[in-house]
């Protein structure tokens, strides 16, 4: 109590003033200590030992204690401490093991008072008794602690830690006889100065060295320790066994720890390496520092609160040869900078949202943003010390799930799965896709498909009802445009088209009455060039070998074709896109040799007017008798595709691109197409739509895309009899001329998918094995193995 009152007098009634400031020292500091008047600080290091006065605006060097011509090792300080009762008394711990006391009251220049040369190795720490004027304690690398009475020439008692080295010694502030010491092996010991024979208590506090400890200034039982394991632990020493009450995780080994005055739960730490910052922690929020001082450019070696009853001034010395005064209100506060929310959009339109609980609390009367969020928390705390701790934050995590059918991404999945992209005439594809889109409630998309059909297919096939629905964008600009244009204006635009297109174009630009004859001309044209009205792709189909036919599945055959659409062309299986050739240059050598399925539909469409000229005249004569060539629309269609892509519906862009194939491909540059394809494929893969994705890759005309699913697709098979690689065919061995992979169920050669049990290596046709294992769990080969099929 007596001490308390004296301190207040020392404060002189007036509060401390000052600002964040620093001064350059001549050499790196090892330790600092503050005089009890809070107006002077002593800095000690290997080659520095000075006293600075702390003024309002700056540090002023007051006294250099390093005197004498030749520097003595006794002056190389590892630690320094200023007596908290006697303004003239200091003690230093020298690296050579000497403990020196200094009396500032001496009249001579040399203030050195006493020299204790009892330790054999570096003294790591010296500590004055908080209330006893003449008691000094030291802890050394040699493993001993010594208690000195300054009125005597040598130590009063020696304490042996029975351990390698002592890193810190601290007198308890409240227990007169007690001090704590920390050790390199992770132990903390509690001693009674009257009993040097053995410690009162010992416990392991850290993994690895305990570099520092500090008694709580108010709470008599609390001891904070810091270690190389990057942790600060707060121990309650009042209980029978030391109990860990708090544990703070820092980012580097803890070199110093100091409780913050007047703030029961705050402590300051600095690190021994890597990290140069000083942190102030609230031990109740052990993960995020409450404040951070970032002034130092090298390791901070000493920290001290300027006054034992003022929480806002912190002094520090560093290896970067600076002495700093930090003001708490200038500290950066990581808590305030930390992002209190996390937000992520899910694949299906669901949202994951994590937010600080105080932000989302139902009745949080949160004030609107007022410019500065960085109001220092400690002011708030000071206003009402009884206020419950609000710093410990937690977050509420929730996932907002979008209800099915109300705007999730399910439309994308459904559309991707149900769209038909190839294998049928263009008109049918468009109709099908329009239907799919309409069923999913995507009317604009449906309208677009319908319009595409009108543009590129014979008008007779478009149903009157769907035309009436054309009220979208297309009908307002597309169709009137078509009618208002004069054919003559069109002619120059057509000049550069390919031959096939030109012939088609001529056909369509004629009146309906001439249609049939024009078509005849077209056919003659084709006969001249290709020998028949079979499209160019047939030629490509012709050069294929025959043997793949057996086990390659034509997707086209999966769709039953309605009889009215069976045109001569369709009789030929369209196999070009499944040709088993690498994407070499010959694959794409000629644009006319379209590897595209629906490319053949162009010709189907060009023939169609003959069949359906009736309906033309009867139903939509006015609209279609001045029919424009599809090429006329290609610019419009390309714009439309770009529109969809920019609206985020790359699915539509790619689907139309595939369905229309050659008709629009040339009008969109390769890079854009490739971009669309990769984007769409990426999306499909996100939704695990592997089959659709593969189909798109297969149907793509861009070389960069079509090679995507041809990388690392080679399976190397070895003969099961002679163990030789089977080079030419997958099922017959060239050497032993035996069939390698026989189905265990039907005993025939398996030429396609071969499934086998990894346990007994028997197997066969996928279908057969599946069926077999439905009825029995034993191997069909009769080997007795219990096969597992998953």
């Amino acid at each position, binding site marked *: 109590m007596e001490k308390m009152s004296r301190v207040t007098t020392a404060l002189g009634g007036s509060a401390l003033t000052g600002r964040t400031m620093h001064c350059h020292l001549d050499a790196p500091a090892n330790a600092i200590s503050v005089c009890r008047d809070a107006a002077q600080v002593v800095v000690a290091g290997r080659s520095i030992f000075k006293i600075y006065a702390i003024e309002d605006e700056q540090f002023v060097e007051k006294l250099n204690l390093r005197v004498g011509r030749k520097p003595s090792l006794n002056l190389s300080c590892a630690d320094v401490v200023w007596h908290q009762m006697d303004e003239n008394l200091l003690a230093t711990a020298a690296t050579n093991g000497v403990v020196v006391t200094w009396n500032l009251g001496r009249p001579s220049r040399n203030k050195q008072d006493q020299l204790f040369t009892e330790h054999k190795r570096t003294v790591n720490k010296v500590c004055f008794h908080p209330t006893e004027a003449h008691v000094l304690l030291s802890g050394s690398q040699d493993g001993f602690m010594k208690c000195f009475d300054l009125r005597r020439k040598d130590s009063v008692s020696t304490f042996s830690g029975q351990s390698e080295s002592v890193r810190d010694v601290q007198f308890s502030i409240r227990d007169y006889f007690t001090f704590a010491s920390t050790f390199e092996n992770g132990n903390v010991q509690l001693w009674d100065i009257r009993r040097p024979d053995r410690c009162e208590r010992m416990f392991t506090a850290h993994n690895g060295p305990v570099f520092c400890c500090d008694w709580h200034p108010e709470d008599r039982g609390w001891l904070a320790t810091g270690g190389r394991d990057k942790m600060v632990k707060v121990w309650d020493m009042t209980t029978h066994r030391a109990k860990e009450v708090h544990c703070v995780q820092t980012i580097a080994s803890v070199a110093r720890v100091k409780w913050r005055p007047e703030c029961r739960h705050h402590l300051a730490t600095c690190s021994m390496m890597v990290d140069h910052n000083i942190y102030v922690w609230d031990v109740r929020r052990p993960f995020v520092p409450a404040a951070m001082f970032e002034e130092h450019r090298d390791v901070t070696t000493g920290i001290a609160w300027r006054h034992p009853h003022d929480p806002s001034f912190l002094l520090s010395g560093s290896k970067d040869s600076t002495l700093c005064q930090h003001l708490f209100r200038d500290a950066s506060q990581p808590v305030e900078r930390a992002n209190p929310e996390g937000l992520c959009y*899910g694949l299906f339109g669901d949202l994951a*949202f994590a937010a600080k609980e105080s932000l989302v*609390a139902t009745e949080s009367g949160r004030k609107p943003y007022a410019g500065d*969020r*960085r109001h220092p928390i400690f002011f708030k705390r000071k206003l009402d010390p009884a206020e419950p701790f609000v710093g410990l934050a937690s977050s509420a*995590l929730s996932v907002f799930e*979008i209800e099915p059918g109300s705007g999730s991404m399910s439309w994308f999945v459904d559309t991707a799965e149900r769209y038909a992209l190839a294998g049928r005439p263009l008109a049918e594809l468009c109709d099908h896709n329009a239907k799919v889109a309409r069923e999913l409630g995507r009317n604009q998309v449906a309208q677009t498909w319908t319009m595409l059909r009108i543009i590129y297919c014979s008008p007779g096939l478009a149903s009157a009802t769907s035309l009436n629905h054309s009220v979208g964008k297309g009908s307002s600009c597309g169709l009137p445009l078509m009618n208002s244009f004069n054919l003559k204006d069109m002619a120059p635009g057509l000049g550069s088209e390919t031959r096939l297109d030109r012939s088609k174009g001529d056909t369509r630009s004629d009146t309906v009455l001439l249609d049939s004859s024009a078509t005849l001309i077209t056919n003659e044209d084709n006969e001249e060039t290709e020998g028949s009205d079979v499209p160019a792709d047939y030629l490509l189909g012709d050069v294929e070998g025959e043997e793949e036919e057996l086990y390659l599945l034509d997707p086209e055959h999966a769709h039953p074709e309605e009889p009215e659409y069976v045109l001569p062309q369709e009789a030929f299986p369209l196999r070009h896109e499944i040709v088993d050739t690498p994407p070499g240059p010959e694959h794409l050598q000629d644009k006319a040799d379209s590897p595209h399925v629906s490319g053949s539909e162009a010709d189907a469409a060009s023939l169609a007017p003959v069949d359906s000229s009736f309906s033309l005249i009867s139903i939509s004569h006015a609209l279609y008798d001045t029919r424009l060539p599809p090429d006329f629309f290609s610019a419009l269609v390309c714009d439309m595709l770009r529109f969809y892509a920019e609206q985020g519906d790359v699915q539509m862009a790619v689907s139309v691109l595939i369905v229309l194939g050659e008709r629009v491909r040339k009008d969109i540059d390769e890079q854009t197409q490739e971009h669309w394809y990769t984007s769409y494929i990426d999306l499909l893969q996100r939704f695990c739509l592997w089959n659709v994705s593969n189909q798109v890759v297969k149907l793509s005309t861009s070389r960069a895309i079509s090679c995507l699913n041809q990388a690392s697709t080679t399976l190397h098979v070895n003969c099961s009899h002679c163990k030789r690689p089977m080079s030419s065919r997958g099922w017959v061995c060239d050497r032993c001329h035996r069939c390698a992979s026989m189905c265990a169920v039907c005993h025939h050669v398996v030429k396609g998918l071969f499934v086998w049990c990894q346990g007994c290596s028997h197997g066969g046709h996928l279908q057969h094995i599946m069926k077999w294992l439905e009825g029995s769990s034993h191997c069909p080969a009769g080997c007795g193995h219990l096969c597992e099929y998953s």
Partner: protein
Amino acid sequence: MFVARHIAADHKDLIHDVSFDFHGRRMATCSSDQSVKVWDKSESGDWHCTASWKTHSGSVWRVTWAHPEFGQVLASCSFDRTAAVWEEIVGESNDKLRGQSHWVKRTTLVDSRTSVTDVKFAPKHMGLMLATCSADGIVRIYEAPDVMNLSQWSLQHEISCKLSCSCISWNPSSSRAHSPMIAVGSDDSSPNAMAKVQIFEYNENTRKYAKAETLMTVTDPVHDIAFAPNLGRSFHILAVATKDVRIFTLKPVRKELTSSGGPTKFEIHIVAQFDNHNSQVWRVSWNITGTVLASSGDDGCVRLWKANYMDNWKCTGILKGNGSPVNGNSQQGNSNPSLGSNIPNLQNSLNGSSSGRKHS
């Protein structure tokens, strides 16, 4: 219409980031409590924590998934000045039986001298690359030359931004016409009003990242930044979370017109700016097609923004963090006229209009 599903995250401090994986079936959260948790969605739609482990010795700011082609890989970054790459171990163990998976640290990236504030994997087509940014204003780009070896990362680029960085975003475009590009946001709060968003572009000729653009109009601290998924667009959309939500479009000016070899020039337009959060905006996130932007702010609300066909961005929904109805007062300035509890429908048609629906 949204249904809030609350998850007892059981993190011991603030959660700073949540992240869905590529397929949307897994979620990772990271917190100041120095741990990362991985959540897997069950058949019934519940989220189960299948892994929780201490990742750093400081607050973990961000967590992000790599493309599944590279395995089940996460990256995290922390106040402890490191970023780390984690991989899930597949194998039979006791953990598996308890429904827990095991994650191992593959690498620690220790180049930063200050807090690493963001980490992002590059788009898949660039290979296995990772960008980090740190409070000292340096963006670092790492590459794993061998995608099978996640423990070897080489520092490819160091880009100095001069300002303390808070967030980064890769341009996700897979188009060959778009060079690799990264946007960096800064939360530097010093009063000198410098532009807080910088965009760097990779130059094939110099093989370096060079500054392409600076968004001069953004001068307040930026907390989050996100490029919209680019599904075949010729231009880029960038969302910025600062004291308000801002959406920019970046239209590349045709290469032929600019001097060859130099960085691409962009026509930059601000297409939307909303201060409806009435406070700092902390996060922005795009939906998968890049058509809806979600933002969250100090008001504890998530707001959804969508453009109509006229490229007019409007609020289409407000979600309160705890699932409770949104208070009418906090909605001032909102385009949605109906007050009280409403959680408007997300439109999937192109002409998105906000149709309010009563939420029970």
